[in-house]
């Protein structure tokens, strides 16, 4: 499980709405049975000019100079700024694995697809929802200022801009608690094994067809 408390980092813009999980990590890379190594293939079809295949060495592949993440000024970014409905499409956790492996610890957008939003927390990526207006403002500031950084503070649920503006954000209390403390979901749930067992036993009596196997 991952920890997240505070982060001050470079912001990279991805000015597109509806960025889907197929774009975040194309399907040919889903054949891997591992959790790691997806970073070099994040946004593969937009990022490179050739067609990526698993196990490729990406260091010498031709890069698409028009793709924002390829610009020198955004190298080393840990915060991704993007548009509405980010992460739509499939349930593949390979998408947050790829973003995390690439180096992102937080994604800021006006909205996220539900499953992606969930998967992000489980992989130590903090998804932050801000209004369309604030997102627009941040896009403009990022564009105008090379080296633009934001500070994200999870305990106080706030983002600070270089000019000193403080922007509050919402986060679910349980997810915040897990991220701050680096807790393992499965371990936490197993502490409630007795409760689960008694629910299950009662259900076997009331709805036996659910256990007809």
């Amino acid at each position, binding site marked *: 499980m991952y920890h997240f408390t505070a982060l001050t980092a470079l912001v990279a813009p991805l000015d597109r709405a509806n960025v889907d999980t197929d774009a975040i990590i194309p399907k040919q890379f889903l054949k891997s049975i591992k959790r790691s190594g997806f970073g070099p293939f994040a946004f593969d079809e937009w990022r490179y000019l050739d*067609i990526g295949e698993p196990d490729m060495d990406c260091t010498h592949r031709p890069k698409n100079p028009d793709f924002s993440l390829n610009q020198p000024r955004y190298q080393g970014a840990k915060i991704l700024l993007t*548009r509405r409905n980010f992460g739509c499409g499939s349930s593949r956790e390979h998408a947050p694995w790829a973003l995390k492996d690439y180096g992102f610890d937080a994604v800021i957008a006006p909205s996220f697809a539900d*499953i992606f939003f969930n998967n992000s927390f489980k992989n130590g990526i903090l998804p932050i929802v801000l209004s369309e207006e604030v997102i627009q403002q941040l896009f403009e500031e990022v564009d105008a200022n090379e080296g633009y950084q934001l500070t994200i503070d999870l305990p106080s649920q706030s983002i600070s801009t270089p000019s000193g503006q403080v922007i509050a954000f919402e986060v679910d209390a349980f997810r915040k608690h897990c991220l701050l403390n680096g807790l393992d979901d*499965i371990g936490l749930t197993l502490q409630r094994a007795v409760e689960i067992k008694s629910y299950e036993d009662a259900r076997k009596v009331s709805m036996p067809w659910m256990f*007809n196997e």
Partner: protein
Amino acid sequence: MAGKTLYDKLWEQHVVSMDANGTALIYIDRQLVHEVTSPQAFEGLRIANRKPWRVSANAAVPDHNVPTTERSAGVESIEDPIARIQVQTLDNNAKEFGITEFKMNDIRQGIVHVVGPEQGLTLPGMTVVCGDSHTSTHGAMGALAFGIGTSEVEHVLATQCLLQKKMKNMRIRVEGKLQTGVGAKDVVLAIIGKIGTAGGTGYAIEFAGSVMRDMSVEGRMTVCNMAIEAGARAGMVAPDEKTIAYVQGRPFAPKGDIMTRAIAAWKELNSDDDAVFDAEVVLQGEEIEPQVSWGTSPELVIPVTGFVPDPEQETDAVRANSIRRALDYMGLKAGMAATDIPVDVVFIGSCTNSRIEDLRQAAAVVKGKKIASRIEMALVVPGSGLVKQQAEQEGLDVIFKDAGFEWREPGCSMCLAMNADRVPAGKHCASTSNRNFEGRQGAGGRTHLVSPAMAAAAAVAGHFVDVRTVMGGN
């Protein structure tokens, strides 16, 4: 006190416990597993030295990576070594943990969302999960079914539970009647066109109204399948006599007295008359025309009688930008008629439209005809071995082959092109699948989402046509 929605009832029946800020531990009745999103979950169990909580709640089937061409050698038939390892890993994990698996050459093998209901593994009133967003399909049975990520697959394996927050309730009513030639796929594409791909985000959608009541259980699966394309993790339809008839006699379905008790309980699974929904959308069945998606998001869809939109007339800048990008990727001109879009490849298959009724609808359109000379590839990929067998008994395979289609083995195939079935760059594909994202069916491939009847009609014409005019003569 206001009544309860179907979703409220399903939710309440599964809450094991709830904490102060509304995060609930909910019990999962069924988990379906496929090869792509499970290896890391099983690996996690092994590393933590954990065992599955209730092995019999799980069932596994390989579908995404399996070849749809000759494959009698089983796993060895998979040429791509990386894909082969993944399918082999599923076989090994199922064996190691004792999970029922329908392997590649088992006649019951197929797309996980076709196999679940077909085997009676998915029942009304269940919570059903799978590491796959189209798990929403199973909601057609009156189940609470949704896709999860791999960490959650592991969580369900280990605890039989998930941590969830309750979603909001949305009801989409489709009233009236559908025109001849308009089917479940057109209904759901019209819904997505109306509410957008994020319209259902945060909601569980109940599909209701006379069109949904009149629709077959398989048609309801097509609609619920694409709830996720409307942004909703779960879509559902209240179970009725059709659902019960569908379940009866399936291999994993209850039998005898227990089935009688189950049926009594299933009859309670519907929204109360005074239930309150957080959002409600109404469509009129008569107004729905056959649909064709023209862009790179399922919401970029038009009626077959319509025209590709013009970004200059869009006032929302983000949306105008999306239209521009989509036109560019799809190689289309603003304002062109849907029926002027050429078709090079045809794909009839996927968990949206690969069941027997889908194949019958497509076969009825191509019967006695030939696919157009410009069509480079036309595939029919049945959703499961049993669907394939049924179709062959009805002679549908012969109809398709005579028309010039290839008749394949079951799997996901060209829906996401993880196996060898791909749409070549720049080519237009009339596809019965559910996603038209850039590169979804192959790098550079251009997907148009349509119903099986519309795909079949496009195959014959070499461009999109209004299937209602083709069917007029019948």
